[in-house]
């Protein structure tokens, strides 16, 4: 009986995904694949994406829904990165400058986004998606007309506007590792540390008076109202927090990846992150740090393992298709759960 209850609580999709991943790890040696390298790959991708997935937590806890509008926060982070490069800041300073501007724009964008969502109570997720899409399109125009001058960013031969992909190799590529003097170790210790820092901050936040208020709004709005909590204000706060974290998250991603990707890159960024946190056990109304860790690991694990493993078995690269099915299937599962409205 207890087993059945556990299965119900975990949900079949998660179990399937977990088993799927485990089976891939197990089959590695049989296919002649290096398990250690594969695991390491997974960890690196974990480090890249963890904060982005973490950014979903404030809005979920506050009942503002899954942040399909994450591209808005990502754009803030891209602004931070480009401004930092424009200012010529290198090394760890450059990284900090990028983070600083990411936070500033994250707050501004998040605040506007929060105001919009407050007018749309009940239909947040749909509207968030489209606000996200519109903001990407708007920023595309911005990348073309903003007066950036840095030679590392604009088109060569005197074209106008920023390049689609900008390398950060001369600025803060893998700065988190370099700062800790761990250049030669492949494991992403720097990213993991920074994730732990932010996870700790978020966890502490929800223990403060402000965080408790936000949680109440997400768990039981009537209770929150009766306790004198200003529901509108808490919702905006959650959106600002989420957007800020998304902005920081993309900067971390870029320093690990090595490139700043502009224009249409952020368009679909929300979906993998949302799929990840859902795989980790979160729901539309409740998410914990553990969900973030487990989910990011499982999701990135599948992304790293599938190409090599599936290719090894049937000699075809089905990774893209599998990614689409897994991530959207997971989100679909979460959306059709009863009693989470």
């Amino acid at each position: 009986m207890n087993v059945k209850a556990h299965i119900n609580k975990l949900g079949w999709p998660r179990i399937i995904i977990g088993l799927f991943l485990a089976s891939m790890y197990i089959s590695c040696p049989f296919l002649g694949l290096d398990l250690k390298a594969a695991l390491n790959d997974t960890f690196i991708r974990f480090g890249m994406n963890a904060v982005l997935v973490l950014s979903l937590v404030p809005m979920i806890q506050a009942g503002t829904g899954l942040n399909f509008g994450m591209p808005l926060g990502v754009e803030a982070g891209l602004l931070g990165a480009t401004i930092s490069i424009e200012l010529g800041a290198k090394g760890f300073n450059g990284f900090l400058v990028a983070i600083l501007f990411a936070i500033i724009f994250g707050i501004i964008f998040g605040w506007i986004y929060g105001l919009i969502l407050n007018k749309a109570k009940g239909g947040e997720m749909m509207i968030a998606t489209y606000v996200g899409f519109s903001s990407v399109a708007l920023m595309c125009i911005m990348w073309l007309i903003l007066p950036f001058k840095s030679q590392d960013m604009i088109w060569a031969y005197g074209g106008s506007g920023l390049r689609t992909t900008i390398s950060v190799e001369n600025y803060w590529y893998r700065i988190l590792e370099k700062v800790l003097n761990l250049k030669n170790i492949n494991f992403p210790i720097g990213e993991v540390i920074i994730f732990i820092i932010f996870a700790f901050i978020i966890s502490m936040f929800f223990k403060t008076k402000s965080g408790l208020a936000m949680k109440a709004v997400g768990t039981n709005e009537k209770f929150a109202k009766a306790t004198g909590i200003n529901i509108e204000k808490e919702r905006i706060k959650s959106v600002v927090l989420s957007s800020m974290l998304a902005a920081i998250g993309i900067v971390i991603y870029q320093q690990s990846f090595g490139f700043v990707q502009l224009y249409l890159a952020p368009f679909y960024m929300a979906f993998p992150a949302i799929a990840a946190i859902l795989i980790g056990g979160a729901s539309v109304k409740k998410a914990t740090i553990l969900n973030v860790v487990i989910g990011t690991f499982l999701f990135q694990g599948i992304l790293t393992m599938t190409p090599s493993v599936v290719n090894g078995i049937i000699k075809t690269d089905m990774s893209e298709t599998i990614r689409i099915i897994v991530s959207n299937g997971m989100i679909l599962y979460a959306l059709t759960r009863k009693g989470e409205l």
Partner: protein
Amino acid sequence: MKKNLINNIVPILILTLIALVFPLSGLRVIPTIQEIVLRLSRNLFLVLSLLIPIVAGMGLNFGIVLGAMAGQIALIFITDWHIIGIQGIFLATIISIPFSVLLGILAGKILNKAKGREMITSMILGFFINGVYQLVVLYGMGNIIHITDKKLLLSRGYGVRNAVDLINVRRGLDSLINLKIYNVEIPIFTLLIIAGLGFFTIWFRKTKLGQDMRAVGQDMEVARSSGINVPKTRVLAIVISTVLAGFGQIIYLQNIGTMNTYNSHEQIGMFSIAALLVGGASSSKATIFNAISGVILFHMLFIVSPNAGKNIMGSAEIGEYFRVFISYGIVALTLVLHQWRRKKEKEYKRKKEMEAIMKGELNEKSI
């Protein structure tokens, strides 16, 4: 009068925008009209297929993508079997039906489990089924599913090619009856079929099923307690929409002449919905007029933007991005307006009720 203005704020804004920008785009009138006629005949059917789920209270059905995929699978088959012209189109239509019905039932059942979040769920469902579609078309066809014409397949021997030339059935519908007025070519037959769908929609509203859907769309609980089978009615609405979308995609593709196997259907959902909203519809109310005006306005934006962008801002790219921004922004704006308006209406109603009760009190006292 004022209420009319507010309700139609979106199309009015877009119309104003286009009116301002058109002269600056440097485009000429007649070719533009030709483009619009072409795009109407191409896209209107798909947009009309969105109407019925709205009537049934299920919002904007992003799941028409599923119907589009069904239509494309049908087209793959008839292209493989080398069936040409109007027969090809007709056969494709017939073949698409069982796929559409199955996908529609699946979609309807899933949406029934996501009451209150139908729109986002149908959007994600569209992505999900796209993955399944890829499994079937990119890996299954030529493999488990037999394809005779090897030219359709990728060089590795299985999986349909990225672009399928529909030369057999290209313009199969359009060229059936063609008229030319003032140098503008009008595909009469296609337009007749679209008009047919229009009449079907109007007729449908007056049937028992249509009435049931209208009731379910307004208040599921009241409908249920009056004996209407609410889940079944909702599933039917989605099935009809999906089947129509299948037809619509076939009409769309026979006009373009080439099928991008893995892309043609992807944006269909967003574009059709954006067009409908640009025409003044909302997620709970949409008319045929919204559909027609929406397609015209939306595609005018398409046509005008690149050129206007080049002439005003010096970059066609900016014009393109601006168009994308407007399209998505419109959808976001309409959705927000819709939620906000619903809230205001509820508050207004409650205020009126309180006032009525107070007045009733006063009346009683004065008797």
